[in-house]
């Protein structure tokens, strides 16, 4: 578990490294409520982390997002971006891997394709670790 935690945090570090505009990144396991999070330069308060997590789950479970998912044939990966006045919230979920969601807060919209690549690697981690 510690190993998985460390690897996940390393991946989130890599994400911060690639996206200078990333203010906060976290991996949420909606089933267990477990959260791995890392913020950039300044410390982020627990209440902000909780609010971002709540916003992310609301975005994933919103009726329009559910309707959209249902429309696609064999949906695998869903990404939801909420462009807000002060930040851009991006939530990515691998629908094949249960309830894990990668949640990132950016100061401006990131390159989505690169973010999806990193997200796929993060979602692969538990499988890779199990295989090892």
């Amino acid at each position, binding site marked *: 578990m510690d190993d998985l935690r460390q690897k996940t945090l390393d991946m989130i570090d890599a994400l911060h490294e690639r996206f200078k505009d990333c203010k906060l990144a976290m991996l949420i396991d909606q089933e267990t409520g477990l959260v791995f999070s890392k913020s950039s330069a300044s410390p982020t308060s627990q209440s902000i982390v909780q609010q971002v997590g709540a916003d992310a789950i609301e*975005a994933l479970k*919103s*009726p*329009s*997002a*559910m*309707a*959209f*998912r249902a*429309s*696609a*044939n*064999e*949906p*695998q*990966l*869903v*990404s*939801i*971006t*909420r*462009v*807000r*006045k002060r930040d*851009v919230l991006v939530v990515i979920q691998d*629908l094949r891997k249960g309830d894990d969601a990668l949640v990132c807060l950016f100061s*401006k*919209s990131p390159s*989505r*394709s690169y973010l*999806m690549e990193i997200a796929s690697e993060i979602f692969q981690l538990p499988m890779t670790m199990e295989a090892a």
Partner: protein
Amino acid sequence: MPSSAKLHASFDSITALIDGDGGPSGFREMDTETACAELEATLVNTVLPRRITIRSEDGVRLSVIARNRRVIKVADVHPQNLWEGQQSPQATVCEGDYDSFARAFTSVLLKIVADKRIIIEQTFLPHALGTITHSGYPASMLCDHVSLSQNDEGDAAVIQGFYDTFPDHPRARFGSADEIDIPATSNIDPAWIDGCVAALREELNGKDTDLRFIVVDGGDCRGAAMAWLGGEGCLVMSEYPDQFDELELRLSALRERL
């Protein structure tokens, strides 16, 4: 700059009269910037109470009471339906804030001066002003607020502009206009998009603004941008991943409206 604008205006008026361009009525053709700068200069040079009126040749006018380089009251807007403020022009408190006063004020002004021959008149007040408790709108801010207003497209126009940018995409417009438009080449079911819009309406109830982008990747790939500003909304979809970046970029450009 206001005092030089005033001098420039006066000189212009004199030469116009000498050349006969001004005509006996004194209405003069000016571009929007010049007309607004002249009104600003007139107001900035008003220290003792005056009624200042800017009128176009077709009878549209805005009349204010100015004192001490500030607009302290809107006396008259004709026709009155030009005024877009929350309260009547006369009841609106004149202050330096764009949203509460200057937006409505400059909006009327721009309608009066747009491509028209105008005149700016000053008259003394026939009655005492009475007690004015607020400080008034600083005249020196007028041209800055005019520029802001010129870029201040309404929410409906912005949403319609976004929607119109993607004529070949499956899309829906909701708010004051209701329409679903699906190209013949698309596999999107109109009933499904209708259901999506219904879900969005419910989620957006009570919200002023919202911008979202969603992508579902799998057997097929679909992306959608949703924009909602001041009760006007649209949903634009794509089934082609190479179009997602453009869609997302255009959506992000609306962030300044939030």
